[in-house]
C-alpha cells in the first residue's frame, strides 16, 4: 500500500524525523485557511500516488494565503499521469541549500533491507545510480541484528558529507528511518530530497512510503490511511468482494484460478492477438459464490466484450465452477459471450453441466490456447 506524501511524513514525524509543519486541504478554502494558520510562504503540493508532480504543475510556492487559494484551485482536479488530484498538502516553505537522497528499501534479491544515500538528491535515484554510481552509497542491514549506529556513519562519511552538524543530523535520521521501516512494516521509505537549509537544518522535504499489505492487520492506523476514492472503482469493488482483480485496458475479460495461471491466461490472450481487459484470480479454492462475485466485477467494466474462463481444477473443482457460472448467468442475465475451458478435478462433470444448460452465449473449448483464440475472436 502506497502512502501519500503527507501520510508518510506523519509516520516520519512519529519516529522523530524532522519535517516541515503542514496541513491537509481538499478545497481551495481549506488551502487558504491552512496557509493562514501556517503563516508566511507555503508550498501547495498535489497529493497523488505517482511521480512527476512538479513538472505537471502539481507543486506551487505561494507567497501568502490568497495565493495558496489560487494555486489550490488550479491544482485540485488536475490529472497527473492518470491520477486526479483530490488532496493538497499545504506546507511551510523551506529554504534549500543542498538536496540529498536517503532511502531504505526491501531488497528482495538479498533478503535484507537496503539503505541508499547520496548527496546528489532531488533527482531520480535510478539516474544517479547509472550516471554516477560512485556517488551512491548502498548498505544492507542484517534482519536479525537490525540497525547499528556505524551504518549511519558509513552512509554519511561514505557519501562525503563534511559538515559535522549535518553528519550528526543525518546519522540520526538514518537510524530513525530504520525505526519507521521496521515499526510500520515498510517495503520502501524514501526521502527525496532530504534537504539542508541555509541555517544548517536537515529535514525531509518529501516522503515516499510503501507498507506491506500483508502486515496491515497489525497497523490499523496505517490501514485506515487508504484512500478508497483514489483507487480504480472496479478495483475497489473487487477488494470489497475479496476478488483479486487488476484492471487492464482491453476487451477480453479474463478469469483464471491461481495467480500464475491467471497471469499466464492474460499473456495467452495477448499472444492470441487480443487485448485483456483485466487480470482476475478466482483463488485456490473458488466456490460458486466466488465465481459469481468475480463475474460481477469483470462485467462491470463496460469495455469487456467477451469473457474467457480458464480453470485448472486442483483443489478447485470444475463442477463447482460450472455451477457458479450458471448461477451467475441466472442472477445477472449476462449476454456477453463466455468461453470456458475446464481441466483437472471433475472437469468432465463440469463440462457436462455446462453442456446440459445449453446457454446460447456459453462455449466450451478443450484447451487453453484454443479457448483464448476463440475469446479473442468473439471480442473483436
Amino acid at each position, binding site marked *: 500500500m502506497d502512502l501519500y506524501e503527507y501520510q508518510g511524513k506523519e509516520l516520519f514525524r512519529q519516529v522523530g524525523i524532522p519535517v516541515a509543519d503542514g496541513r491537509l486541504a481538499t478545497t481551495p478554502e481549506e488551502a487558504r485557511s491552512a496557509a493562514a494558520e501556517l503563516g508566511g510562504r507555503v508550498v501547495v503540493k498535489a497529493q497523488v500516488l505517482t511521480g512527476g508532480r512538479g513538472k505537471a504543475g502539481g507543486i506551487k510556492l505561494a507567497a501568502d494565503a490568497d495565493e495558496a487559494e489560487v494555486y489550490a484551485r488550479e491544482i485540485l482536479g488536475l490529472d497527473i499521469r492518470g491520477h486526479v488530484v483530490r488532496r493538497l498538502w499545504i506546507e511551510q516553505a523551506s529554504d534549500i541549500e543542498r538536496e540529498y537522497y536517503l532511502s531504505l528499501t*526491501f531488497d*528482495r*534479491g538479498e*533478503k*535484507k*533491507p537496503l539503505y541508499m544515500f547520496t548527496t546528489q538528491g532531488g533527482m531520480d535515484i*535510478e539516474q544517479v545510480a547509472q550516471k554516477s554510481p560512485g556517488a551512491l552509497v548502498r548498505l544492507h542491514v*542484517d*534482519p*536479525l541484528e537490525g540497525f547499528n549506529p556505524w551504518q549511519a556513519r558509513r552512509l554519511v562519511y561514505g557519501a562525503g558529507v563534511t559538515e559535522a552538524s549535518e553528519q550528526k543530523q543525518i546519522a540520526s535520521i538514518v537510524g530513525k528511518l530504520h525505526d519507521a521501516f*521496521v515499526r510500520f*512494516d515498510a*517495503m520502501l521509505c524514501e526521502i527525496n530530497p532530504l534537504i539542508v537549509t541555509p541555517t544548517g537544518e536537515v529535514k525531509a522535504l518529501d516522503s515516499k512510503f510503501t507498507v*506491506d*499489505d*500483508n*502486515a496491515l*492487520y*497489525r497497523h490499523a492506523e496505517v490501514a485506515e490511511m487508504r484512500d478508497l476514492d483514489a483507487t480504480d472503482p472496479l478495483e475497489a469493488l473487487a477488494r470489497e468482494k475479496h476478488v*483479486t482483480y*487488476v484492471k*487492464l485496458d482491453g476487451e477480453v475479460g479474463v478469469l*483464471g*484460478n*491461481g*495467480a*500464475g*495461471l*491467471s*497471469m*499466464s491466461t*492474460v*499473456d*495467452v*490472450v*495477448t*499472444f492470441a492477438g487480443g487485448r*485483456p481487459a483485466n*487480470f482476475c*484470480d478466482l483463488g*485456490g479454492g473458488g466456490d460458486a459464490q466466488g465465481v459469481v462475485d468475480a463475474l460481477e466485477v469483470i462485467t462491470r467494466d463496460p469495455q469487456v466484450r467477451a469473457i474467457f474462463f480458464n480453470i*485448472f*481444477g*486442483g*483443489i*478447485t473443482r470444475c463442477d463447482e465452477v460450472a455451477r457458479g457460472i450458471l448461477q451467475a448467468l441466472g442472477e445477472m442475465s449476462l449476454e456477453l459471450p463466455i468461453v470456458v475451458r475446464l*481441466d*483437472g*478435478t471433475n472437469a468432465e462433470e463440469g463440462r457436462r453441466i455446462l453442456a446440459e444448460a445449453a446457454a446460447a452465449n456459453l462455449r466450451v473449448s478443450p*484447451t*487453453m*490456447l484454443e479457448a483464448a483464440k476463440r475469446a479473442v475472436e468473439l471480442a473483436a
Partner: protein
Amino acid sequence: MAILVDTETRLVVQGLTGSEGRFHGLRNRAYGTTLVAGVTPGKGGQDVEGVPVLDTVAQAVEEHGANTSMVFVPAPFAADAVYEAIDAGVHTVIAITEGIPAHDMLRIHAYVRARGVRMLGPNCPGALSPGKANVGIIPAEIFTPGSIGLVSRSGTLTYQIGHELTQMGLGNSTIVGIGGDPVVGSSFVDILRLFQDDPETEYVVLVGEIGGDEEEKAATFIESEMTKPVVAYIAGFTAPPGKTMGHAGAIISGSAGTAVAKKEALEACGIRVGTTPTETAELAAELTR
C-alpha cells in the same frame, strides 16, 4: 530418492485441527504420506481421524519422530509456528499459509538459513514426489512418476504444465512450489541444486513469473553449475508495472522484474523459454526424446 518429500518423510501438520489443515493433512495421508501428528496449542490429547494432536512441535519430534512440518497456521501466528518447527528440530518446513508479513520472512529467512533447515513457502502449494509422498495442496492425481523435476512460484500454473506433460506420457520426479511471496524459504537455485543432485531427476522445468530476480539467478546457476537440461516458462508478460498480480511477490517494481528481462536472461544462458504452458510442455517433451 526424489527431493524434499519421499517415503522417509514423517509429517507433522501445524494447524491440523483447522478446516484447511485437516482437509489437506488427511488428503496427504490418503496419498501415502506418513502423517505422524498434528499440533494445535491447547488441543493436545485430541485426535483427527486417528492422527494424534499435540500442543507443541517438540512433542511431535520427540515422541513421533516428525522430521517435516507443514504449516497451516493463520498468517499472524505463522512466523511463530515456523520458528517453533525449526527449533524443534525438523529438517524441512513447508508453509502453505498465505499473507505472512514480508518483514517476518526476512527474519525467518536469515534464521532458517543459519540452521541448515529447508523451507518451502510461505504461500506455496508444497511438494509432491509422485508415488512417494505429497506434502501440501498439489492435486496428486494430475501427476505420474517420472524423470522431470518441476519447480514453480505458482500452483495452478504448475498443474497446467504438469497436466500437459502427463498427457504426453511424461512423469515427474518431484513437483515443487516455492511460493509466491517476495521472500520465500527456498529459491529456484536451492531447488535446482537439489534436482541436479537427485539421481531420479533427468530434466527440469522451471516456471517463473514477474517480480524479483530469482529467475535471473537461476539462469546463471543453470549455465554455470547444472548438467541436466532445463526449459522454462515465465508468466506475466502483459502485467503492468506497480500492480500486484495475485501473488504478493508478482509485481514489477520500476523497471525491475519484468517477464521480458527474465526471458532474455534465461535465453542468454542457453535455456529455452516457452511462450505458453503448452509450448513449454512441448519443449520439455523434446528434451526427453
